[in-house]
């Protein structure tokens, strides 16, 4: 048994860091297993701005993080071109802000290696017409947008292409420790409801905020700092450049365009560990996000909000700062052998989405040292699958083909197309075809509708799953040959969509929710879930 389940490295966590680490390990020839409790990007990776940080935001307060950011920023543009949009960003000064901060900011950026350009407020309005016209100063920086779902899955796909095994819906329930060395893990499969043991010479804890629990299973302490950040998604792109406030980092001062939408965030509140699995956005947070968001782009006041969501930053606690903002966003790579006398165990945490690759490199370097592997890291050089080849969107052709190209880069060529069924649209808002859904089901670790959403954007558009969830559920029935499972899954999916709509359920969103309930309760007959839903709606 141990022979079959023996690996060089087990990576715990399917966020950007976990997937990136699995990719790095696999590329260096290590026999790698990745275990993810639920789905890729389920945690903080999938619950942030999707900002390709230039690092400018941290330049004044944390020069080291800023430097890491800009280096990784430039790397990702090359290796992950299909996940990145090179929009550039503006740091704007409003009349109520101190314009003196601008020069301090520019100086700090320059010191960190971040290219800045002070531009005239009038020019800023031409560059980005949605910007608050009251601005008195603007600095252009190399910010951008990055799609964390695509980025993580591309890493996972590359890991698999290099021989790694990836098990989603496998929750680590215990670590196997022999003679003071972690030799493997015990994991419960949410799919089969069975528990299995997997063995490895090195186990890497890349579970984000949940890494706190993983570490405690090994009897070591990693003091994590759960800081909740809430964000709002707007119905369409209001801005085409990232808009930031040029002041000391504060709440709700970044507006990022991403794919078809834009996102304002974030708030920052300390939350107890018991709550990290069920983050909810409060009314006060929505109010604050709206109030501050309008300061960046006044059009937000009248733009439909699609949903609200919250993530938990996996910061490592250093002091008793109640806001969590003064904590370094720096990378923390812990060799528990040196730190705690526990062999075969590494924790990689802290950091940011932007530095996931560097975090993976550090963790893999450490694992390789333990394993005597001397292969060089190539993740900064080799393109991710999808980014290796032509990722340009052509003016010709069908909308759905262009949309798929946008999402999957050069891998879009693998998507079945050309016949009536494959070309028919499942998600109309985001233009996702049945061919793309089937491609994702077959190749991108899809077990539930929510996984499909993260792989394709199905259900992320204006109707929030209203038209597509039932269609996609139909395709899932065909793929998994189980109608009952798909029906429950569909109800869960709609429920999850409603969770995000609930905090902003007024106006058009309320109308949309009503329309959705007609479809799912009225037409699809999901009446068994009515009570469940009503309860949640309250």
């Amino acid at each position: 048994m141990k022979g079959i389940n023996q690996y060089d490295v087990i990576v715990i966590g399917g966020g950007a860091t976990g997937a990136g680490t699995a990719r790095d390990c696999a590329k260096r020839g290590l026999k790698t297993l990745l275990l993810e409790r639920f789905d890729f990007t389920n945690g903080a990776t999938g619950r942030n701005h999707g900002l390709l940080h230039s690092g400018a935001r941290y330049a004044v307060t944390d020069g080291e993080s800023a430097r890491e950011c800009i280096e990784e920023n430039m790397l990702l543009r090359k290796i992950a071109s299909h996940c990145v949009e090179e929009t550039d960003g503006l740091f704007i000064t409003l009349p109520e802000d101190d314009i003196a901060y601008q020069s301090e900011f520019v100086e700090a950026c320059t010191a960190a290696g971040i290219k800045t350009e002070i531009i005239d407020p009038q020019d800023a309005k031409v560059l980005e017409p949605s910007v608050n016209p009251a601005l008195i100063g603007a600095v252009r920086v190399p910010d951008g947008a990055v799609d964390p779902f695509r980025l993580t899955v591309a890493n996972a796909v590359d890991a698999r292409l290099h021989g790694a095994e990836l098990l989603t819906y496998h929750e680590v329930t215990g670590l196997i420790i022999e003679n003071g060395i972690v030799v493997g893990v015990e994991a419960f499969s949410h799919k089969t409801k069975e528990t299995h043991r997997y063995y490895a010479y090195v186990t890497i804890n890349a579970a984000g905020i949940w890494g706190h629990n993983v570490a405690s299973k090994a009897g070591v302490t990693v003091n994590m700092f759960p800081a909740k950040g809430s964000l709002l998604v707007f119905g369409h792109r209001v801005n085409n450049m990232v808009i930031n406030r040029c002041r000391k980092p504060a709440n709700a001062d970044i507006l990022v365009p991403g794919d078809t939408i834009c996102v304002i965030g974030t708030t920052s509140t300390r939350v107890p560990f018991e709550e990290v699995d069920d983050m909810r956005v409060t009314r006060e947070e929505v109010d604050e996000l709206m109030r501050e968001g309008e300061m960046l782009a006044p059009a937000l006041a009248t733009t439909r909000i699609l949903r609200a969501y919250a993530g938990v930053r996996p910061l490592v606690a250093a002091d008793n700062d109640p806001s969590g903002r003064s904590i370094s966003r720096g990378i923390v790579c812990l060799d528990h052998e040196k730190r705690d006398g526990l062999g075969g165990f590494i924790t990689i945490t802290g950091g940011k989405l932007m530095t996931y690759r560097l975090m993976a490199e550090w963790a893999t370097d450490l694992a390789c040292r333990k394993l005597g592997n001397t292969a060089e890291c190539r993740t900064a050089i080799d393109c991710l699958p999808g980014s290796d080849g032509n990722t340009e969107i052509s003016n010709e052709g069908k909308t759905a083909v262009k949309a798929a190209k946008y999402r999957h880069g050069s891998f879009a060529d693998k998507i079945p197309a050309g016949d009536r069924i494959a070309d028919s649209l499942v998600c109309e808002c985001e233009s996702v075809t049945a061919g793309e859904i089937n491609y994702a089901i077959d190749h991108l670790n899809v077990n539930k509708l929510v996984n499909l959403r993260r792989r394709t954007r199905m259900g992320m558009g204006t109707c929030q799953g209203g038209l597509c969830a039932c269609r996609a559920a139909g395709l899932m029935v065909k793929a998994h040959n189980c109608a009952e499972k798909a029906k429950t899954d569909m109800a869960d999916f709609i429920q999850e969509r409603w969770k995000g709509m609930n905090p902003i359920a007024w106006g058009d969103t309320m109308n949309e929710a009503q329309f959705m309930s007609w479809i799912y309760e009225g037409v699809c007959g999901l009446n068994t879930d009515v009570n469940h839903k009503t309860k949640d709606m309250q």
Partner: protein
Amino acid sequence: MKKEQYSISKDNFEQCLKCTVCTVYCPVSSVNPLYPGPKQAGPDGERLRLKDKAFFDETLKMCLNCKRCEVACPSGVKIGDIIQRARMNYGPKKVKFRDMMLANTDFVGTMANLVAPVVNFTLGMKPVKMVMDKVMAIDHRRTFPKYSGIKFETWYKRNAAAAQGQYKNQVSYFHGCYVNYNFPKLGQDLVKVMNALGYGVNLLDKEKCCGVALMSNGLTAQAAKHAEQNMTAIRKSGMPVLTTSSTCTFTMRDEYPHLLNVDNADIRDNITLATRFIYRLIEDGKARIAFRKDYKARIAYQTACHMEKMGWKIYSISMLKMIPGVELVELDSTCCGIGGTYGFKKENYETSQKIGAPLFKQIEDSGVDFVATDCETCKWQIEMSTSKTVQNPISVLADAIDIEETIKLNK
């Protein structure tokens, strides 16, 4: 409640709940599966185009701008405008020679008037139609409207202008290209009726084509110039401006501000269809009509798309129903398929005729003497595709009215 007041999102596209009722009512979607339909071409597509203009889809050309999607939308989304605007903003900037010819109704009309008999004869010839089909992609099966030998404006100056001053009430008349170049009789009918009601009819100072064909063929800047000139002329006239074409009316009232950004708020209410103006006069007791005792007709009324959009068919229908000898059959409100210059284009011919087919059948089955409609292009389409002739309600009124008696009533 007007929802648009509560949203400044351009064209309200975010109020779209994705109910898809617009696509159900889209005449193109019902016959051509290659067209994505108003929902996808409009609000859905707009989100994608906002992220990257490469998402502009050539199939948007298949929209015939009937605006029936906007009539159907329960959320007040200006779906047709979104599609038109996308075509203007993202569509190919180079305009085909054919589209230029079809769009420039003013220029082509003026030229054709000079040699009308030759043009009419030539355009009717099979070999010429085949050449136009091959060279210009104007479908050879399409019948062209005949050009008149004398422009309405010329007729008016020679025969009517001098007499208009004697009436105590005065209106202006925006005749449009069709009346001017193809069918002056409709303009003459209007002058006859209005004079009988005690109204003098004036022409605008340098009226231009309303520009609808220019807009739908990508000549936006030229259309905007026309719009400015027409609005200036209408402002200058200071009188109610009557029209006899539903599309010209709709274009000047709604497309100018929505698509060409030409502000007409101060004079929009002055522009009205003649049937609406006359119906209101009668209804308010400000004028009276005497009808010929011997007028008898069974008439089918076709609701043109822009008539449906304006919500004004009730005026034309009620006016026709005032005529004692008229038996009116209201046809199902549906697009005839022509869509202005749309149906002339070879690539749209099949779609155009398929859209109109149910209407043509209903007309043939109705047993009417003729069809009435407020749109000249509906007239071309129905006359080409059915055995019936088509008249503007104003011409019907002109036939049915007892001129002498009416003049006396309104003295």
